[in-house]
């Protein structure tokens, strides 16, 4: 059965083209996804991300539980409101999902996981939580709106009470605060500054409309995908899954092998690392015409790989992609695009950060 967020009618009234995304009826675009992309890079745009799953974890042993559940180190979170990006692994070191954890107090952490993986994530978290007496509560009563872009924070500030505004203006990146009934986190999935706002469903339509009035452009999942790929951010299901370790997905930076911490998947991860990781994720830029797309074959001197996420980058005006290729690939590669082998440049990512190209011009 298709699910709808509380903003569904609002999207339709705005003329959105709707698509099924992980069982949810979501806006793909409101006309032009390229214009929506530029609005986020140059000004401010917003996304309904209420389909994502918010899970509250409560109990005195919650931190201890998270030390065990996730591959990143929860003890990096020392101050209330701080957030951490991490993978949640199975025993083989494969990625069950990627998620953000917020530390609120020692007996209360909040986790945001992907929509398409909701059922297996909930089952896994609940199964692991039992031994720690942690209470797992899905917050289906909450909506979430991401407001992103160089002017996003300023636009949000105009809608806040003086007290909340003062708190929120001081937020560092990857931190959250509460006020006016909103949970406001300075996080995002676009490579721009901005907020992800978690709020009661009953307040979502009114906040959305106030943001439009403040000059924020509605943006759909199409723009969200091109923005996150330019920003060098992984998409679960496309760039990694349960058969892929973080080593092979460009996510080594999220693995904390701090001494003495036993977390699920650690042994497998260490073993894989000692054996040598056979495949790695790289960034690609196509200088010629054409678009790199998921599933295309990548031909290298070390053997074949494949395109994971691939798209047209509106900011760069050319196609970019993530690919998984045999380790040790140096120099340029070719991609089989509709039967033609096209030379493609290997590039570091993020491709775009804070509105600016990060790749060398050629």
């Amino acid at each position, binding site marked *: 059965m298709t699910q709808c967020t509380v903003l569904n009618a609002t999207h339709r009234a705005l003329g959105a*083209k709707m698509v099924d995304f992980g069982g949810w009826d979501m806006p*793909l*675009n409101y006309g*032009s*996804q*390229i214009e929506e992309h530029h609005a986020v890079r140059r000004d401010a745009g917003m996304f309904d991300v209420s389909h994502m799953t918010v899970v509250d974890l409560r109990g005195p042993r919650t931190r201890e539980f998270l030390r065990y559940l996730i591959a990143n180190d929860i003890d990096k979170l020392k101050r209330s409101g701080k957030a951490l990006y991490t993978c949640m692994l199975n025993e083989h070191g494969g990625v069950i999902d990627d998620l953000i954890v917020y530390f609120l107090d020692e007996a209360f952490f909040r986790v945001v996981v992907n929509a398409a993986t909701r059922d297996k994530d909930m089952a896994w978290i609940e199964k692991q939580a039992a031994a720690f007496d942690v209470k797992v509560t899905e917050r289906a009563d909450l909506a979430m709106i991401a407001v992103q872009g160089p002017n996003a924070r300023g636009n949000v500030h105009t809608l806040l009470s003086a007290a909340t505004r003062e708190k929120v203006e001081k937020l560092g990146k990857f931190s959250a605060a509460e006020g006016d009934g909103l949970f406001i986190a300075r996080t995002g999935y676009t490579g721009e500054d901005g907020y992800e706002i978690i709020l009661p469903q009953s307040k979502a339509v009114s906040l959305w409309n106030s943001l439009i009035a403040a000059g924020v452009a509605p943006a759909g999942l*199409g723009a969200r995908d*091109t923005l996150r790929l330019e920003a060098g951010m992984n998409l679960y299901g496309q760039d990694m899954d349960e058969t892929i370790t973080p080593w092979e997905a460009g996510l080594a930076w999220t693995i904390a092998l701090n001494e003495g911490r036993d977390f699920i998947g650690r042994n497998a991860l260490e073993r894989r690392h000692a054996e040598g990781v056979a495949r790695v994720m790289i960034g690609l830029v196509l200088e010629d*015409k*054409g*678009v790199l*797309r998921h599933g295309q074959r990548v031909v290298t001197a070390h053997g074949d790989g494949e395109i994971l996420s691939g*798209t*047209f980058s509106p900011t760069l005006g050319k196609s970019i992609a993530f690919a998984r290729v045999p380790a040790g690939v140096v120099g340029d590669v070719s991609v089989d695009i*509709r039967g033609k082998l096209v030379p493609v440049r290997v590039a570091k990512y993020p491709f775009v950060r804070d509105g600016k190209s990060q790749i060398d011009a050629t």
Partner: protein
Amino acid sequence: MIEIPGDLKFLKSHEWVRVEDDGSVTVGISDHAQSLLGDLVYVELPAVGDEVQAGNASAVVESVKAASDVYAPVSGKVTSVNEALNDKPETINEDAYGEGWIYVVKPSNLAEESEELLDPDAYAELIEEDE
């Protein structure tokens, strides 16, 4: 959905043709097709002088979402191509039946091949069933 001009004929695969006064035939893709594809980012044009064969791929339109062949509605020799699409492929999104034309052919078998094409009403009915 914008009005379909009455002087066009269509392939089921959403290409349109217009027979010009001088007997040449202009080819493009329908407004419905551009709306399904989303923002166009590249157009691969045939070369002037190419012989295109009805039913075969004659150009490629590529959007943020997908690459799609443009099938030749009629056979003939390409006499001009819309070079402006190289810089502004989005012209097809904005004006599929006008400035967004793709190429012109001198048809070699028009009388017979045009019998296979749909008139605007039949095409409108087809895309209605699609939705």
